[in-house]
């Protein structure tokens, strides 16, 4: 069409160049901060994990996988790594069980159903740091001296990790509940009605109709709670500060190849151990090696979830 009109062709070429200009102009406001604040430190971090970086002005030298090899015998890291695993598994279990239960409850025809939903959801609005201080008060004073529920604060006993999980469940269950509610409301009413007429009881209806139809919400929620659990930092910082200290169990010492028991922190999760290692012990490179290890595991879980989801979508 345009080949007979050279003027128009020139205009078109000009349009292409201006298209490219606008493309980059529109992209840069998001791309620049992303490159500078996420990708650059990400690259730096991987590099630093192979050096003897101390975070200061000292020159850094390449030392290969030394930091990573050190992690295998670093009893405090190994312990916190396992603690994080236990914490994450229990968290996923607790939060999803409570959230699903609450969702089933508030999707029944209740009078104040909106009020209940809002009340269960509210703890999620408050940040993890504030929540931690709030529950430190509940545990150390209200549940002990006030209600005589405990002899002494569970935050300084053997069950500090469980105490932490209770707090996070309280904080997060209302949010996951909302995801389940959205899914439950999408289950067609007539399907439930039909099965009722066919004589299915409540449990059968739940197992054979509701659960398969909201499987997607389960995957989303499990993944969401898992990732959030792995990234936990704030609530530990304010609730337990990683404590209380405990004597390391024998199996841990066997695992890292040490003879005598050492002190480990019972609720110190990976994020907290990285932070403490860098800012209390000035071991930036070791901390960074932990962070990279942690990232690899998180990435495997994330990719696994996407893969799992895609596979099921095909099946459906």
């Amino acid at each position, binding site marked *: 069409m345009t080949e007979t009109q050279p003027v128009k062709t020139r205009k078109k070429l000009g349009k292409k160049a201006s*298209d490219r200009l606008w*493309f980059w102009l*529109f*992209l840069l*406001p*998001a791309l620049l*901060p*992303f*490159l500078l*604040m*996420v*990708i*650059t*430190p*990400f690259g*730096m971090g991987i590099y*630093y994990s192979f050096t003897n*970086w101390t*975070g200061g002005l000292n020159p850094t030298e390449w030392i290969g996988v030394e930091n990573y090899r050190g992690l295998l015998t670093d009893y405090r890291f190994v312990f916190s790594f396992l603690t994080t695993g236990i914490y994450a598994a229990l968290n996923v279990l607790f939060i999803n069980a409570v959230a699903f239960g609450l969702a089933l*409850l508030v999707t*029944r025809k*209740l*009078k104040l*159903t909106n009020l*209940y939903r809002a*009340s*269960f959801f*509210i*703890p999620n*609005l408050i940040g*993890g*740091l*504030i929540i931690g*201080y*709030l*529950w430190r*008060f*509940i545990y150390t*004073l*209200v549940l002990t*001296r*006030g209600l005589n529920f405990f002899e002494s604060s569970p935050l300084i006993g053997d069950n500090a990790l469980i105490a932490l999980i209770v707090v996070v469940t*309280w904080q997060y269950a209302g949010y996951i509940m*909302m995801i389940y509610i*959205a899914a439950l409301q999408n289950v067609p009413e007539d399907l439930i009605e039909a099965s009722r007429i066919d004589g299915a009881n409540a449990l059968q209806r739940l197992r054979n109709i509701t659960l398969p139809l909201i499987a997607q*919400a389960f995957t*989303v929620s499990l993944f969401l709670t898992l990732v959030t659990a792995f*990234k936990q*930092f704030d609530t530990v910082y*304010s609730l337990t500060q990683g404590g209380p200290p405990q004597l390391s169990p024998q199996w841990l010492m066997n695992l890292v190849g040490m003879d005598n028991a050492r002190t480990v922190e019972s609720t110190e999760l990976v994020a907290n151990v*990285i932070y403490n290692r*860098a800012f209390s012990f000035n071991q*930036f490179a070791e*901390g*960074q090696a932990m*962070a990279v290890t942690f*990232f690899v595991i*998180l990435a495997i879980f*994330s*990719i696994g979830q996407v893969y799992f989801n895609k596979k099921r979508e095909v099946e459906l």
Partner: protein
Amino acid sequence: MARIQTFFKRFNWLEILALVLMIVFLYPFIIVVLNASKDNIAITDNPIALPTDWLLFFRNVADIVGDPNLNYFRALFNSIIITTFSLGLIGVSSAMAAWVLVRTKTRLSMTLFLFFVSGLVIPFQIVMLPIVELSRVIQTTVGIPWKDTHYAVIFAYMGFGAPLSVFLFHGFIKSIPLDIEEAAIIDGCSRPEVFFRVVFPILKPIFVTLLVLNGLWIWNDFLLPLIMIGTGGDTKTIPLAVANFAGAYVIQWNLLLTALVLSAIPVIILFLFAQKYIIKGMTSGAIK
């Protein structure tokens, strides 16, 4: 009589269970509010008693507001500045980027989109230590004041907010028919005019979702400001100020609890007004 009967009949045991659970869930808030109106001795003496003088709350507030470690109004101001600017800038910049990425059908734009999305799996923990070093380089080598500034934190949030925001906008823009934009071009609109006058208004639902998701994250975030500002910084946000206050003394519960109430109030008030949007935003954001 019949009315009372139907009332009892309809007030089933599930309703009672839900009520009890609601009280259990709200109890921590209630007890904190009660104790924010006491002095320290009364709290440690009996933390579940009702306060004798409710007006003591305002005494505690006055103490908090004047405390140099907390500096409540300064922290509130910092939190508001950082959250509002981050939200606005993340929203506009990500929408702009997502739009050109959808409308330019080249391999480059597809790669750039995947590049943004890959940022979703990068946790803050892996970049937090390098950011300390990066800030030092920007501050000393490049010479831009960077530590303890509002704009540095806002810039960082733009970077960390981009992956999810670009992803959500991208999905939404794909569903907008091209005809509308073509009509605008025929009417003589320039590129930016097409975007800001025609496309951007259509993005409102996803924009609101992102305001909620990013807003709660940034308002409550602790680790990023801890690294980039520090608990002693002038631009410290509310969580930093509370951490600084709690770490400064042996815990004075009356003041700490008052601080907790004051820091929770802004979000709870917002929730009461925008409950519908917040719940919808958070659930739809998670499912996508």
